[in-house]
């Protein structure tokens, strides 16, 4: 089952293309990190997935063939927009009961337990909570709908390091218990490795890289060797990014299992290096890239 599937998805705002020809098949049961520079189209992609934006062309479905934005899809998907917009004049208590009445099924006990854990004052107006507290409240409201797919736009941005850890710890514990799919956008690349197990890199409105993180890390490596042999290397294996300093060449390669030449050193990559290598080379999407959606379709989570 695919949590998110897009086919040739494009979105134009007036004269500008925010998304171009994005094709994705994200299997359910994953925690998906959507990364890319500012203005890459991350928010637009998420808005298309949750049904807040209508594609200019192409299709988006969630949780196996529910059209994004359909009534069925709205029931299965929870979305927390950037900066967690809540009604600032309502108290915490009123926000909870208001959200409960707006939703057919709503786990009020879950939110109450969480607000108690976070020591959020129930009588305080939401507008007077800190940005971090508002994000935490919005997350628990979204979780209380018991979604099959939770979509978060830059959830970590307003949080300090401790709150970030606590937020992600809580979210991951909920995932462990309830087994729903998560898609979140972020430009904090260094923290993704622990949390996400599926990666989408978006640049200039296009999908540059998509896949399970374990598999992507297995297929890529950091090779270093003699600078004069870089050309020959590039002819034999897809090089995502390379740099030369003096006699030493360093290359991030998508080797997909091939051994490096005997005099090249082979080191594993971490997620941050992988993402940076692709972001530094926006044209690297021309590499033998993500497998076709049809091939990915039946791969379950690890």
């Amino acid at each position: 089952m695919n949590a998110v599937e897009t086919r040739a998805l494009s979105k134009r705002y007036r004269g500008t293309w925010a998304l171009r020809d994005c094709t994705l098949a994200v299997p359910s049961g994953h925690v998906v990190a959507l990364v890319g520079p500012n203005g890459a189209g991350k928010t637009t992609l998420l808005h298309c997935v949750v049904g807040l934006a209508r594609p200019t062309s192409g299709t988006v479905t969630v949780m196996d063939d529910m059209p994004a934005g359909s009534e069925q899809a709205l029931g299965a998907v929870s979305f927390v927009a950037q900066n967690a917009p809540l009604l600032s004049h309502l108290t915490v208590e009123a926000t909870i009961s208001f959200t409960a009445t707006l939703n057919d099924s709503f786990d009020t006990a879950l939110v109450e337990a969480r607000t108690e854990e976070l020591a959020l004052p129930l009588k305080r107006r939401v507008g007077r909570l800190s940005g971090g507290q508002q994000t935490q409240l919005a997350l628990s409201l979204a979780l209380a709908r018991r979604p099959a797919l939770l979509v978060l736009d830059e959830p970590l941005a307003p949080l300090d390091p401790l709150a970030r850890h606590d937020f992600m710890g809580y979210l991951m514990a909920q995932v462990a218990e309830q087994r729903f799919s998560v898609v979140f956008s972020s430009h904090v690349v260094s923290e993704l490795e622990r949390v996400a197990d599926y990666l989408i890199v978006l640049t200039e409105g296009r999908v540059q890289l998509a896949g399970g993180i374990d598999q992507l890390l297995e297929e890529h490596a950091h090779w270093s060797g003699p600078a004069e042999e870089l050309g020959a290397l590039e002819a034999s294996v897809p090089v995502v990014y390379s740099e030369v300093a003096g006699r030493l060449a360093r290359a991030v390669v998508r080797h997909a299992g091939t051994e490096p030449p005997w005099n090249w050193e082979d080191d594993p990559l971490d997620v941050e290096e992988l993402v940076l290598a692709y972001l530094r080379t926006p044209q690297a999407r021309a590499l033998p890239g993500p497998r076709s959606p049809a091939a990915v379709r039946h791969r379950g989570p690890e």
Partner: protein
Amino acid sequence: MTLVRDATPSSITFRLDNSSGVPPYLQIVHQVEHALRLGYLRRGDQLPRVKDVVASLAINPNTVLKAYRQLEQKGLIGGRPGQGTFVESDGPVAVLGDLSALEKRLVTGWFPDAEAAGLDEEGMRALFMSAMRSFHARRERAARSRRTRAPVKRGIAG
């Protein structure tokens, strides 16, 4: 702000070193093995629930499942349905005594050879780590080609 409210009593906590280059699941495996070797963990001890590890480290649940699966395959731990995951071994197979022959080969063979080749201690360490990484990469690659040939059956109690 307390994180773990309803944690079951467990005998070990984990920490992750982001800069070590060792995959997080492997760090958990190593920490359990280390605790067994040093006697901090003993047969019958309960490991923390997946949910509690995940909450305290803020990591993906699959990471913990993968670590526990590997420990189970090594025969060190086992899942008891409805109860949790428990230590089922008195320690990793290689205890320190068995390693003395290996250590001797390093001390009388490899180290002198490396010194003769002009390496200082830092150089030896670097060579050792680099060889270890190649060894790891090779093993991962071999495991991958095995996996593509025969899909492995997976499953462990959360």
